[in-house]
Each structure stands twice: as C-alpha cells, then as structure tokens.
C-alpha cells in the first residue's frame, strides 16, 4: 500500500473549477473564462490521473497494491469505519484515465457547442461538479464514499438534464431520471448495510489507518465465506446472493437496465455534451464498476450472476429493437447505449469481468464519439435533430462524417476497430459460459449467445440506418413530415440554444413550433474546438481495442500475448477457492487448440453477422431512408405507458386522494383546526359569564360572602349544638 496525496487533487480540481465557475463565472459572464476554468481543471485531473496510473511509484496500473490517500476519517463508530479516502488500484486507475481523458475532450467540445448560451457558466459548473462526483465514485476506497459519488452523479445528472429549465420536457426528464436512480439507490444502500452485517467492513482495500488495520470486504469474503447455492432461495436468504441482487438493483437504476431503463432516452432532452459525457461514457458505467468491484461477492453468488446475465441480454435486445425505429438521432444513440450496457452486464454475468471493463472503455470511446458527432451534426443543422430531415451531410460536413464513420465501424464490430475485440470477447465468453463460470455450470448460455448475436446484428442495422439517413442519400432539409405541425415530443424544439450571430430566432426563451430553416440553408462544418475532439476520439476508437487483443486473435499473427488489458486487470478479479472457480481459471489460461479454434470460428461468425447487418442496413435504407418501421417499436414497446399506467398513476391517485386529501387535509388539518375551533367554542361559552352589569357582580360577591359566612356558621352550629 502506497500513500500518495496527489490522488485528492484528481477529485478536488474539478470541484474547485465548479466553485469558481459558480461564484465568479456567474458574475463575469465571460465564456472564455468559464470554459478555460472548466477545461483547465479537468486537464489537471487528467494529467494527475495519468501520472499516478503510469508513472508514480511504478504506476498504479502495474503495481500490486493500490495507491491510497486517506483524506480524513469520516465515520468511525465501533467496528464501522467509513473514511473519506481514495484508492487507485488497477480497476479504478483504468476508469480514472479514460473518464478524465474523455471528459476533457467533451469539455472542449462543449465550449464550442454551448457558445452563446446564457447559462454558460452554470453549465460548466455543473459539468465540473459531475466530474468531481464521478471521480469520487470510482476512486473511493469504501462502499459508503462510493455511494456518495453515486448519489452525486445522480444529482448532477438531474441538474444537467434539466439544464434548459424553461423546457417542460427537460424538467420532466430530469425528475424521471432522478426518481428512477433513487429507486436503484435503495438497492445499493440496503446492499451496503448487508455487506457490513455480513463482513464487518465496507472497505475495498486492506489498509492501515492510524495504526489500525482495516480489512477489505473481499479478503473477508474470500477467507471466511463459502459460495451460495445456485437456487432461487438464495436471493432472499440474506447472504451474498442477496447482496449481489441488491447491488445489482442499484446498477439497473444507474445504468438503465430493465426495469429502470426508461429514464435514459428521455434524458436526451439535455444538451448533447451532457448526453455524451453522462449517458454514454461515465455515469452509466458506474453500475458496471460496482458489479466488477464486488466481483468477489458475485463469484460466490451464482444466482445473482445468472440474473445479471439474463437481464443484461434482455435489455440489450429490447433496446436494440427500439433503436431501429427511432427518428431522433439522439434517441437512436440513447437506446444504443442501453443496449451496449446490456452487453457489459451480460459479460459480467457470465464471469468475464475484465471483458466487461474492456467493453466499458471501448464503448466510452466510440459512444462519446458518436454522441459528439451527432452534436456536431445537430449544431450544423441548426438544431434539427430529426433524421428524416437530414441527408447527404457527408458532402457538407466531411470531418464529422469521417469521424462518425469510425465510430460506426467500431460499434458494429468490424475488426480492427475497438468494438470488435470487446464485443467479440463477450460473445465468445457467453457461448462458452459453461467453461468459465466460477460456479461451474451455467444455464442457457447458448440461448443467451443467440440473443446477443441477434442484438449485434440489430446494432449493425440500426447504426447503418442512422448513418445512411444522416449522411447519404438526398437532402431532405425542407422535407415536411406528416404530423409535424403540432408539438411532437422528439422534435428539434428540444435544442433552443442561441447560435451566435447568424440567428433569426431569439435567445433561449423562445418556444417555437419548429425551427424556421431558411430556404438557402446549408449545413456547415463545425468549428475546430468541436472537430478536434472528434478526431481524437475517432483515433482512439480505431486503435483503442488493440490493448486487449485476446490470445486467439493475436496468435493469428504470431504474437503470443498481446492481451495487456486482461493482464492489468487480472489482480482485481478475486481468486476464489472453490474447485469450480479454480477449474474455470485454469480453462481461461490454457490455450488448448480446439478452444482457440472455436474462438476464432465464433469471431469470424460475429464479423460475418455484422457485415450482414450493415448490408441489410444499406439495402433497406439507402434507397428509401424514410422507410417506416413497425409502430410498436417506435412507441418503445409502450413501456413508458405501461409504467405510467400501472405504477405512476395509481401511486399519484392514491397520494392525492388518500394521503393528501384524506389524511393530511382531513385528519391532521382536522386535528389542528379542531383544536383551534374547540378553543374558540370554549371561549365563546365562557364569555357568557361576563354579564357586564354591576348589580349582577354585586349579587355574586354577596353570594360568595354568604358562602364564607355559612362555612363559619356550620362550624358554629357544631359548637353550639
């Protein structure tokens, strides 16, 4: 364990940037100032993160023990210890590096995208606050501080989705995101409580603080607990499986899996850099982080892992099927994110934790690229988001086109682009889950493989559709879409950001029916602050996968061991003592020829399926880009309506009639008003005593005097006899 106080700089630099922007930037209202402060603070974080990860003390990514930084002792009651302490081990090091780097690029992009907006300083303050919370989440060295970061990103997500405070849609989406996150937070919190009850600690790492030994949760689990059985009963038994399921509930909330997924597409009402940063690269991966961080617990809970895999696969195909039918470019990407997150959870569920993290990293690159590219498109199209009104943009916005094409190839899984290696690994590990599952046999892995493969095909189809509708074909800028005259929800009205000087609608107060696109409208390429991040991300999407090439692929070109990524992350994955787990590890390490052959065959199959998907996409949509998809898909399988109808509305009705009118107004107000009324009535009754006439008073006085006299007479009577 090495101590390095630079770690705190990583999280406090963005916080400082947020505070400066909030307090001073608001007064100065200078865009250059706010942008510089924001990007500068993230730059500091990036440099420090990379430094600690690669250089300091040998580099956190390469040494065995984590780099710790104990900032102060937060709670220390008896056995329970929660510190405000950071720890960068290999897992959080990887996360820190790519989060800060991608975050930096997105910040730079946003300075160009949000130019002219009145709340510029506020936007960057929130964005920096979000980076602070996210970095706290991943660098925390115990569950409770991680939860603080977890909540923080939820809050910043709310602030940023609802950034356009005047738009009703944005406010509702922000609320929805926050409430659904909250439902997940319940799961995480109960999970943390249970972890403490079972293991007596909530720290991730073994460390010594103030001379006291703090044991990590995972060492305790590995040393003292045995695996749960693979049954349904284990879920409610209060053991490790319960912990796993509860933590996963939180992960579904944060990472938008079934059933808490509907907030993510609605969150597209926020500005595009927000969607790129939060809902593609960082916040939504927090759920995967939680699962992989707790992999020791999960390896002991086969039921929990199985559930994760099932839900991951189900979400993947559910979201992919919806993405095919969406017309808003950002919604396609949102559902694509949900689908890819499903893949990550599928990987975690079958036991391939390192592959899940690998896919997180590559996904961050290409999804951020795609979102930023779409932001560039929207910016160039005068804030038009509906793909039905785009077309042939490759002529007008070449740089955006080329970079987005890189992202497109990456997500479809074409070798050597980044997505291929990670997604292919997931597919292979799913297919062969029997061999690699820590608890021995898996159930239904072929079915899951089929679902995942189908999702991969659908991914290729809808991404191709998106590219074709946007960049190829003929220009449909003035195309009238039926039903567009009245307010439609996924309309370009969502972006009302002022646009600099060449603007014929007013600043952000305006609510217009649809954007008035002038007749000589030509989309223009975006300025360099926006295209340079795109280029960098495109480069990363292309070569970023090469750090994790599996043995089966690399051996094709004679390199024995190119899977750096897996080696780096290996120590993070707990090595449980169960015989099945040992066997699984052995199987993963051995490179028996038939296994390698199978892997190569499956890889080839996935490439072929991806190519088929692209071909289908071109075939269906190049000639008729406005081809209509089935309505049920366009309506998102009516999931929102289902939730509203069966959950939200009954609760609202119950609250209104019973809780509000019945209990609060009727009972509690009744008591309070009743007391007041009673006092008034009593007062009124007593008031009658004051007759006001002097003679009555005199009579009463006399009466009193007679009573006293009578008392004495009574005793006198006794005396006299």
């Amino acid at each position, binding site marked *: 364990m090495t101590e390095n106080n630079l770690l705190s700089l990583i999280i406090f630099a963005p916080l400082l940037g947020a505070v400066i922007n909030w307090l001073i930037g608001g007064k100065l209202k200078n865009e250059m100032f706010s942008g510089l402060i924001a990007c500068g603070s993230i730059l500091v974080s990036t440099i420090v993160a990379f430094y600690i990860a690669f250089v300091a003390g040998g580099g956190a990514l390469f040494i065995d023990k984590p780099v710790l930084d104990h900032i102060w002792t937060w709670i220390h009651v008896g056995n329970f210890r929660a510190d405000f302490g950071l720890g960068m081990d290999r897992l959080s090091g990887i996360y820190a590096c790519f989060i800060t780097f991608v975050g930096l690029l997105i910040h730079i992009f946003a300075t160009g995208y949000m130019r002219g907006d009145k709340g510029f300083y506020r936007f960057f303050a929130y964005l920096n606050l979000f980076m602070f919370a996210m970095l706290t989440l991943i660098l925390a060295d115990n569950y409770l501080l991680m939860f603080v970061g977890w909540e923080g990103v939820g809050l910043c997500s709310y602030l940023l989705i609802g950034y356009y405070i005047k738009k009703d849609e944005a406010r509702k989406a922000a609320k929805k995101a926050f409430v659904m996150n909250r439902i997940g937070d319940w799961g995480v919190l109960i999970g943390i409580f249970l972890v403490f009850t079972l293991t007596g600690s909530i720290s991730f790492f073994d460390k010594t603080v103030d001379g006291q030994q703090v044991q990590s949760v995972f060492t305790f689990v590995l040393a003292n607990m045995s695996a749960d059985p693979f049954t349904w009963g284990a879920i409610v038994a209060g053991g490790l499986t319960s912990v796993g399921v509860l933590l996963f509930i939180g992960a579904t909330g944060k990472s938008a899996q079934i059933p808490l997924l509907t907030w993510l597409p609605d969150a597209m009402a926020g500005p595009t850099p927000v969607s790129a940063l939060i809902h593609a690269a960082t916040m939504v991966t927090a759920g995967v982080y939680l699962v992989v961080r707790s992999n020791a617990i999960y390896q002991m809970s086969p039921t929990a892992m199985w559930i994760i895999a099932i839900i991951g696969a189900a979400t993947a195909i559910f979201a992919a099927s919806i993405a095919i039918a969406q017309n808003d470019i950002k919604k396609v990407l949102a559902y694509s994110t949900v689908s890819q997150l499903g893949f990550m959870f599928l990987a975690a569920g079958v036991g391939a934790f390192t592959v899940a993290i690998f896919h997180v990293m590559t996904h961050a690159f290409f999804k951020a690229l795609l979102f930023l590219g779409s932001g560039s498109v929207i910016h160039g199209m005068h804030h038009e988001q509906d793909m039905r009104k785009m077309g042939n943009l490759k002529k007008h916005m070449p740089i955006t086109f080329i970079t987005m094409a890189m992202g497109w190839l990456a997500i479809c899984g074409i070798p050597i682009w980044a997505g291929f290696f990670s997604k292919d690994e997931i597919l292979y590990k799913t297919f062969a889950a029997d061999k690699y599952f820590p608890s021995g046999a898996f159930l239904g892995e072929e079915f899951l493989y089929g679902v995942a493969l189908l999702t991969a095909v659908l991914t290729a189809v809808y991404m191709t559709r998106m590219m074709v509708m946007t960049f190829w074909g003929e220009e449909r800028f003035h195309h009238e879409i039926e039903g567009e005259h009245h307010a439609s929800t996924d309309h370009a009205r969502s972006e009302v950001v002022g646009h600099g000087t060449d603007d014929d609608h007013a600043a952000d107060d305006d609510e217009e029916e649809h954007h008035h696109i002038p007749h000589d409208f030509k989309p223009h390429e975006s300025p360099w602050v926006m295209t340079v991040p795109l280029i960098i991300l495109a480069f990363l999407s292309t070569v970023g996968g090469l750090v994790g090439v599996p043995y089966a692929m690399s051996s094709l070109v004679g390199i024995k061991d190119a899977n750096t990524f897996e080696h780096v992350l290996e120590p993070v994955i707990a090595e449980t003592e169960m015989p099945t787990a040992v066997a699984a590890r052995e199987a993963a390490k051995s490179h028996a020829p038939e296994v390698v052959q199978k892997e190569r065959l499956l890889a080839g199959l996935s490439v072929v399926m991806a190519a088929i998907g692209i071909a289908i996409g071109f075939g269906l949509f190049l000639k008729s880009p406005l081809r209509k998809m089935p309505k049920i898909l366009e309506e998102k399988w009516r999931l929102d309506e289902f939730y509203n109808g069966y959950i939200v509305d009954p609760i609202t009705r119950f609250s209104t009639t019973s809780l509000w009118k019945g209990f609060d107004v009727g009972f509690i107000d009744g008591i309070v008003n009743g007391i007041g009324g009673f006092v008034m009535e009593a007062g009124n009754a007593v008031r009658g005593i004051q007759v006001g*006439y002097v*003679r*009555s008073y005199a*009579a009463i006085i006399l009466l009193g005097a*007679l009573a006293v*006299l009578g008392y004495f*007479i009574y005793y*006198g009577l006794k*005396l*006299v006899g």
Partner: protein
Amino acid sequence: MVGTALFFLFAGFAIMCAISMVYHKNPLYSAISLVGVFIALSCIYVTLAAPFIAAVQILIYAGAIMVLVVFVIMLLNLDDDRPLNRLRYLYAIGGGLGVVLLAQTLFVFYAVLRAPNQPIDPNVSAGKTLSIGQAMYTEYLLPVEIVGVLLMMAIIGSVMLARRLAQPQLELVIEREEELRNEEE
C-alpha cells in the same frame, strides 16, 4: 330598663330609616334617610360608652360624606330611578340572598345568646378619648400613618378622575381666533 327602651327606640329608628332609604326612588329622599340612620347609630354609640366615635360619626359621615353626596346629587341634577328593568331576575336573587343573610343573622344572635355572658366592667372605659388617643399614637401608629397616605391618595385620585380633560389653554385659543380672523380678512 331605660337602656332597653333607649336601645329599642334607636334601633327601630335606624331600621326604619334604612328601609326608607332603600325604598325611595328619589335619591334625595334616600340621602336624608341615610342621615337619619347615621344619627340613630350615633346615639347608639353614645349608649355604648363610645363618645369619641359618636362625635366622629356625626362629623364625618353626616357632616362630610353626606354633604358630598348631596352636592353630587344636586350637581348632576338627578332624576328618579326609571321603573323598567332589564335584570328583573336580580330582584328574586337579591331577595333570596337577603333572606339567607337574615337567617344567618338570626343564628348569630341565637349563638351569642347562648354564649357565656361577660359582665361589663363599668370602670374600664374603652371609649374615652384619652385611651383612644393613647392607643392611636403608641400601638397603632403605623395604621394611622397609612391612613394619612390613603387620604392623600384619595385626594389625588378624585382630582384626576373628575377633571375635565384637554382643557384648551387660553393662549392657544386666542392664537387660533387671531389666525381665523386674519384669514377672513
């Protein structure tokens, strides 16, 4: 024998005057009746060998208080009591209370009659002015002083109560008149 006759004479006179006072509606008649009560009581004090009190009674009650009352009656030019009444129930209550009080008086009379009789010592007279004076200035000095203060309070109080408020000062009135006259010109 003589004492008894005198007693009954004065007592009867006092009671008759008292009833007359309550009965009459004209306040002046009531006042005169009350004076009669005072005189009767004064005579009774004399029979009780309390000459000082008898004299003081006439002086203060009949001579000062009743004079004041008659002044006020004359000043306010009071009429007779009006007959109609909102509080008729008070007649019944008053009558009842009076009956109860009479009963209690009778009881006291009866009880004291049964009490052991204390003979009067004719030599010791508690009512002599000398003994009253001695008691006033030695044993009961403090109450006398307090009575003095009380009298002063009463004087101040009655002056405050009965003055006319906001008596306009003559100078201000003249100024105002001059202003009005100047405006008119």
